[in-house]
C-alpha cells in the first residue's frame, strides 16, 4: 500500500496543497483517506499559490496591496489553467471516493465480489462498525498515536531546523543529505529495516545494549509488549516524517530577517525568548501547515504497523487503517471495511478542520 504517513511526495515540499501525488492510484479504500489529506492544506494555505515559507503574512508592511486592481486582471486564463488539476482530482480522488461511499451501503463479501453482484443493505455496515467495540478502541488508539507522532515530528523537526541554522556549511550539507536519505527511503524498506534492527535474536539494538551495558537484553522482545512495539513504530514513523518538517522549517527560518532577531537580542532576549516571541510567531503559518499535514499523515499510518507488528501483539497495535484492511482483505467484508473507511475520512476531516480553524483564529489574534 502506497499511502502512508511518511510517503511524502517530494513535490509537496513546494506548496502544492492539492497535489494528488503518487497516493492517488492505490485502491478505493486507501485513496479515499487521501481526500481528507488534500483538503485541509488548501484551507490552511489560504489563497493558493502563496509560498508558506515566505512568512509574508507575518511580515508587517507586506500586506497585499490594491485588491481592486488585482481583481480586474482576472480573466478566463486562470480557470483554464486550473482545469487539468481539477479533472485529475475528480478522476483520481473523487471517483474512488464515490465508489467507497457507494460500497459502504452494499453487502460486498467475497461471494458478491467474485460474482459481481450488487446487494444494497442501507446502513447495516455502519451499524456493524459502530457497534464493534474494537473499532472504538482502535479509533481512540489512532488519535493518541497520531498526537504523539505529530508532537515528536514537529518538535524534533524544529530542533533540527534550528540546528541547521547554526552549524557550518559542510555540516549543514551533511545533515541535509541525511535528512533527504531518510526521507527518500521507501516506507516498506524502512519499516523492514526497523523490524530487523529491533529483532530479539539478531537485532543490533539488543546486541549493542548487551555489549555496552551490564544489562542482558540478548533475548529482549520489543514486539511482545504493546508499548515497546508502539515505541518502535513511532520511531520509524517519526524518523521518516522529520526530514520534511525540518527542511521546510529550515527554509522558513532563512526568511526571518536578522535585524529583527538582533533587535530582540539588544532588547535583552535570550535565545529561548527570541524563538518563542519572535521566530515562532513569524513562522506560525508554516507551523500551521506542517502540523495539519502531519496530523493527516499520522492518522492514516498503515505501512509501518503492517510491516513491523501486523497489529500484534494480540491486535494491540492495530490502527484504524489496519482495522479497515483486516475487515476488507482479511475477512472479505468489503462493505464493512468501506463504512469504516468513510468514518475515518469524516474523522480526519473533522479533526483537521477544527484544528485549522483554531490555529487560524489564534494566528489572527496574535497579529
Amino acid at each position, binding site marked *: 500500500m502506497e499511502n502512508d504517513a511518511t510517503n511524502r511526495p517530494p513535490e509537496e515540499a513546494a506548496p502544492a496543497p492539492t497535489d494528488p501525488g503518487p497516493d492517488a492510484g492505490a485502491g478505493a479504500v486507501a485513496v479515499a483517506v487521501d481526500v481528507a489529506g488534500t483538503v485541509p492544506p488548501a484551507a490552511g494555505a489560504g489563497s493558493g499559490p502563496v509560498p508558506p515559507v515566505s512568512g509574508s503574512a507575518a511580515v508587517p508592511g507586506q500586506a497585499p496591496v490594491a485588491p481592486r486592481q488585482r481583481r480586474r486582471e482576472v480573466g478566463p486564463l486562470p480557470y483554464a489553467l486550473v482545469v487539468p488539476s481539477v479533472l485529475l482530482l475528480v478522476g483520481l480522488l473523487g471517483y474512488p471516493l464515490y465508489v467507497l461511499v457507494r460500497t459502504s451501503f452494499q453487502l460486498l463479501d467475497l461471494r458478491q465480489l467474485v460474482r459481481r453482484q450488487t446487494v444494497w443493505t442501507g446502513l447495516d455496515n455502519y451499524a456493524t462498525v459502530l457497534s464493534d467495540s474494537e473499532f472504538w478502541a482502535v479509533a481512540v488508539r489512532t488519535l493518541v498515536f497520531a498526537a504523539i507522532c505529530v508532537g515528536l515530528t514537529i518538535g524534533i523537526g524544529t530542533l533540527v531546523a534550528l540546528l541547521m541554522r547554526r552549524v557550518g556549511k559542510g555540516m549543514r550539507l551533511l545533515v541535509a543529505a541525511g535528512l533527504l536519505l531518510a526521507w527518500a527511503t521507501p516506507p516498506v524498506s524502512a519499516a523492514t529495516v526497523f523490524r530487523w534492527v529491533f529483532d530479539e535474536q539478531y537485532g543490533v539494538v539488543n546486541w549493542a545494549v548487551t555489549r555496552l551495558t551490564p544489562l542482558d537484553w540478548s533475548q529482549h522482545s520489543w514486539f511482545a509488549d504493546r508499548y515497546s512495539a508502539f515505541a518502535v513504530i513511532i520511531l520509524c514513523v517519526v524518523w521518516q516524517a522529520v526530514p520534511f518538517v525540518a527542511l521546510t522549517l529550515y527554509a522558513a527560518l532563512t526568511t526571518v530577517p536578522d535585524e529583527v532577531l538582533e533587535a530582540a537580542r539588544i532588547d535583552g532576549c535570550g535565545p529561548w525568548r527570541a524563538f518563542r516571541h519572535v521566530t515562532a510567531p513569524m513562522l506560525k503559518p508554516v507551523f500551521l501547515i506542517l502540523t495539519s499535514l502531519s496530523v493527516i499523515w499520522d492518522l492514516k499510518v498503515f505501512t509501518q504497523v503492517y510491516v513491523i507488528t501486523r497489529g500484534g*501483539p*494480540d491486535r494491540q497495535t492495530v490502527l484504524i487503517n489496519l482495522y479497515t484492511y483486516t475487515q476488507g482483505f482479511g475477512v472479505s467484508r468489503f462493505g464493512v471495511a468501506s463504512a469504516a473507511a468513510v468514518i475515518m475520512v469524516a474523522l480526519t476531516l473533522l479533526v483537521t478542520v477544527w484544528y485549522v480553524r483554531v490555529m487560524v483564529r489564534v494566528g489572527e489574534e496574535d497579529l
Partner: protein
Amino acid sequence: MHRRLRTVAVAGVAVALFAAGCGGDDPADAAAGGGDTQAKDITVWLMNGSAPESVIEAVNKDFAAKYPDTKVNVEIQQWDGIQEKTTTALAGNNPPDVLEIGSTLVSKFAESGGLKDLTGKKGELGGDTWLQGLTDAGTLDGALYGVPYYAGDRAVLYRKDLFAKAGVTTLPTDRASFVAAAEKLQATHGKDKQFSALYFPGQYWYAALPFVWDEGGDVAVKDGDSWKGALDSPQSQAGLGWLKDVVTRFSKAPVNGNENDNDPAVPLGEGKAAMIIDAGWKVGTVLKAKPALKDQIGVFPIPGKTAGSTAPVFLGGSNLAIAEGSDAGDLAYEWVKLLSGSKAQTDLATTGGVIPNSTGLLDIHKDDPILSVFDAAAKNSRSTPATPKWANVESSTILQDMLVAIFSGSKSIPDATRSASEAITKTLNA
C-alpha cells in the same frame, strides 16, 4: 447509394462493437469453444516450498510435448498474505488459470464462486484413491473444486549431535520424557543465550493444536447448524497450559514471531535449536544450507500425554484449483491432471518429501527413516473446522493472537482462550 453506404457503415460499427464486447467480456466461452488446440498461455500459481523445481520442470516438459504452442508461466507465491492476493486475483478480470490453495482455504474460495466445479472430472483424475482428508478439503456441498495435490503433517525434527552431547540417548515417547530431554538439552547447551531446546515462534498455531487435541480439546465444535469455539474448554486450556510452560522454559524464538519470518529450520541448522516442530520437507531446507548435517537430523512424532502415544497432528496440504474466470480452462485442467497424476506425485513424494495425494502411493516412503515417520503420524491426524468461514479465522489471526497473549503473559490462559473462543464462534457463524 448514399443510404446503402450508411447501412454498411452502421453494420460495420455494430460488428466491431459486438466483437469487442465478446473479446472483453467472456473470453472463457471462446476458449471452451475452441478447445485445447488453441494456443494460449496459462498461468499457474504454486506456493513457496510446495514442489521442488525438478518436479515442476518434468510436468512442464510432459505438458509441452502434448501442447507445444502453450507456454506455462509458473509463479511461486508466498504463504504470507496469500488470502488477500487470491481474493484480489479471483475478483479481477484476469485470474491465474491454476492455483494451489491451502487445504483449509479451498472451501472459502469455492463458496465465493471463484473456482471451477470439477466434479465431472473426478473419475478421470483418479479420484477414488485420493486421500480422504484432502478430498474433503477440496469439496463443498458435494461438489469438487480443489484437486488433492499433496498432504503434509508435522513431527519433531531434532539434532542427533546435540542430543548425544546432552546425554539424551532414548527419544521421548511421551510429554514427560520430552520435557526431561529438553531440560537436559537446555542444561548442556544453555550457555549460548540464544539456544532453544525447542524453538517455537509464538504464532505457530499449527504446532500448538496437537497439544490441544491430545488433551481432548478442539478449536471449535459443531452444535447443530452452528459452530462453537472450544479453545476455552478445560481440555484445550490444559494443552495450552502445558505448551506455555514448555515454550517459556525452552524456546528463545520471538514470542510475537511466526514460522514464516522466523523459520525454525534456520536455528536448527545453526545449532541454536535442538528440536523444532515442522514438516518433512524442512529437512531438505536444513541440508541445503548445511550439507554437513546430513546424518545429524532425526525425527520423532509429536509425543502424547500417555506413555507411548503420539499427539494428533494437523494434516495440512494443498489442493489445485482452476479459476472460474480462466480463459484457458481446458489447458489448465490438462496441467492439473499431470501434476496430480501418479507420475508427478511419485516424483513429488520422493524428491519433495511430502505425502502424495493417493493411497496407492502411500508405501513410497517405507524405506525412508525420516519420511516414514511423517506418513505414520498422518494416520492420527485432524484438521480445522470444515466450514468456508474457517479461512476468516485464519486471516483475522485469532489463534495467533491468542497464543502470543498466552506466551507473553499479557493475558491469563482463561482470559485469552475465552476471548479467542468468542471470536471464533462469531466468525464461524457470521
